[in-house]
């Protein structure tokens, strides 16, 4: 194998993409005639076909180096396994789809004049989809067919989709990186990009921000906010001295607490002032009511009020979910707030896009605000006494 050519290509790649240099040099080359082109495994070995090196120019090979290392940095094998587990699908065809989707995620900002895109590379538009998205997004939106026929030969190895390959040396082979070492390389690259983001493309900057601080899904955050608000003293299931415990009979003169349930009442105020779409509203509302129910709120303890004239979605949802719908006020959320507080709930949840004035004093109930995504300059600052979760 023309190793010198392959290493010259890696050097070119490292010069053109200095922020990926550490990751490129961490790859260990394995000569592998069985591999169609170049492929990686999850242990950061790079299997190279000698014939492929002979066929391509140094510049083309440099592009392939960057492409393959991107699969590993972006953990496509782990994400492929997660997708397979989540959707209960697996097999060669499905793994090929993962490889294609992973390529589509990488290829929209890997290449430029110094590292030209191969003629046969997968691009989002060759799948008829928009660029700038992630592997999971593409996976849900295309099937194998005539459009993907040109990519049937595609094989970036087990590092790109998680499916085992016959040439893989496996976890016990030489020069493999352990999970810990892989994390360390990823971390170094991310740290380098975050420290000097000068010339890295936006896709890589976003990756560097998120790789070790993945954003929490809003459902989890909303759930946490609601739970901690509702499970505070005086709500939910806990011990109370309001009535003596059953053990107290054997201990005359001592008061023991007893387990009591006082289910929290949750009041949801929905901003339906036109700028919130029905889909956004529906998903958030369903989530909140489901959590309210799980907290032990009986049906009559979760109420929804809409704060505008346009109540189609809210009304439909409330009828479907059998939630009492209370009448709304104007477009000013303060009125909705005041109406909600008159019902003396434990928790008030506001679902709004934030373009509203807020009450100036802390209300008597704990407040959780679900904010729908808007360009940030349109937000009115949320009050400090509310726990804010950004939805979407």
């Amino acid at each position: 194998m023309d190793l010198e050519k392959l290493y010259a290509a890696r050097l070119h790649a490292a010069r053109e993409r200095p922020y990926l240099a550490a990751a490129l040099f961490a790859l260990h080359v394995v000569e592998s005639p069985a591999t169609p082109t170049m492929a990686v495994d999850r242990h950061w070995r790079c299997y190279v076909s000698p014939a492929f090196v002979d066929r391509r120019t140094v510049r083309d090979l440099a592009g392939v180096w960057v492409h393959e290392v991107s699969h590993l940095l972006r953990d496509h094998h782990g994400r492929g396994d997660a997708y397979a587990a989540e959707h209960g699908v697996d097999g060669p065809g499905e793994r090929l789809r993962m490889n294609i989707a992973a390529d589509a995620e990488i290829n929209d900002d890997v290449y430029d004049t110094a590292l030209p895109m191969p003629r046969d590379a997968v691009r989002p538009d060759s799948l008829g989809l928009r660029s700038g998205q992630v592997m999971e997004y593409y996976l849900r939106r295309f099937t194998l067919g005539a459009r993907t026929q040109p990519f049937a030969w595609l094989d970036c190895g087990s590092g790109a989709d998680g499916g085992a390959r016959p040439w893989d040396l496996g976890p016990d082979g030489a020069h493999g990186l352990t999970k810990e070492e892989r994390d360390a390389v990823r971390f170094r690259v991310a740290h380098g990009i975050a420290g000097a983001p000068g010339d890295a493309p936006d896709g890589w900057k976003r990756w560097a921000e998120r790789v070790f601080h993945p954003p929490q899904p809003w459902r989890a955050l909303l759930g946490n906010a609601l739970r901690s608000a509702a499970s505070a003293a005086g709500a939910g299931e806990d011990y109370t001295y309001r009535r003596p415990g059953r053990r107290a009979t054997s201990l005359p003169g001592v008061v023991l607490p007893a387990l009591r349930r006082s289910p929290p009442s949750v009041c949801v105020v929905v901003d339906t002032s036109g700028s919130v779409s029905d889909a956004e509203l529906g998903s958030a509302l369903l989530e909140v009511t489901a959590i309210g129910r799980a907290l032990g709120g009986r049906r009559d303890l979760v109420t929804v009020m809409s704060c505008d004239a346009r109540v189609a979605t809210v009304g439909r949802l409330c009828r479907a979910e059998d939630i009492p719908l209370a009448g709304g006020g104007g477009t000013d959320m303060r009125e909705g707030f005041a109406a909600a507080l008159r019902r003396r709930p434990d928790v008030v949840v506001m679902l709004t896009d934030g373009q509203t004035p807020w009450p100036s004093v802390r209300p008597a109930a704990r407040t959780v605000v679900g904010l729908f995504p808007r360009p940030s300059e349109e937000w009115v600052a949320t009050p400090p006494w509310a726990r804010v979760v950004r939805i979407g």
Partner: protein
Amino acid sequence: MRVMTRMRNGNQLDTAAELLSLLGDTDTEERRDAQLDALALAVAADLPVLLWGEPGIGKTAGLTQLAADLGLPLTTVIASVHEPSDFAGLPVVGDDPAVHGVPMAPPDWAVRLAAAGRGLLFLDELSTAPPAVQAALLRLVLERRVGALTLPPGVRIVAAANPRGSAADGWELSPPLANRFVHLQWTHDAAVVVRGLGGVWPRAVLPRLDRARLREAVAYARRAVQTFLTARPGLVHRMPGADQARGGAWPSPRSWDMALRLIAFGTAAGTSREVLSMLVRGAVGDGPGLELLAGLDRLDLPDPETLLADPVGTPLPERGDLRQAVLDGVISAVRDRPERERWDAAWSLLARAAETGPPDLVVVPATTLAALRREEWDVPALIDRLAGTVALSRRAVAA
């Protein structure tokens, strides 16, 4: 007639017992298990451990192995079936409460543990207990007190909780409490379980502390944490933000102290980087933990000055990215103190690197080193050994 029936039933139960003993007849094989290693070290270090794991994946089995290995009796208490007074103590009214007060009597298991003076206490299902029970339990974990009784230092305590899923009934630990625990994620390995159901369960080989390395381990851990926090003072204390995973580990002076202790224990046991990573990330959180480990990697690399003193004999790391980091360090050292001997030593090191590993990562250091040349310095003869590298570099430029 009745006698006959009893005979038959008795035989049935004997047969059932036989079948059960056949089912229980399993082999074990030695196997290293990183998460059990991490748990063993955290328990040895006497830090409060919180295991996060789904129900039914063998947390108790792991603890049983650990208890057997440490020679400690295991007491399991399932938190969700107890009342708060079981952990806070039951009030016992004496003759004159106003004079003597009301002592809080501990439950029998705590008395037995205290009498034995040693043991492993496992508090399971912390997350499904009502808040008042959790509060009483946390007092037990963090202050080692049950009612009026203080558990002796020979008792080690491990708690377990089910992770909050995206389900509506999840559980969250408040940041002040989360900060006091070493959080370990407990997962199962499908292959191991399948093999176990086939009759061969793994027997963990637990880490051993090496008496000869204790001093060295303490010095290493102190240097590691000190060097790191000097460079990143912002990480000494950082509360988890509103949109981050709450209820997990986060960095504070307290948790850094735990991390230091864990590094010392891991080093004294000569444990793998993977185990150390679990422990450190479990104490101070993922981001700061990974940064500290990256710092440890740098501490473990050969020192540039050592390499310049002996460029032929000092071993170079095998892995490309580490090798590149070492060469960069050497070139910086030469740039800081440019002397003829050091410059020559760096060249012979580069030549060695080009001959013993991928040549492409030698190019950039070689170019930088060449630029450091003074007028009166001759080009060393061994530059010919880098000819291949030069050719490679030309090909890359021509691309």
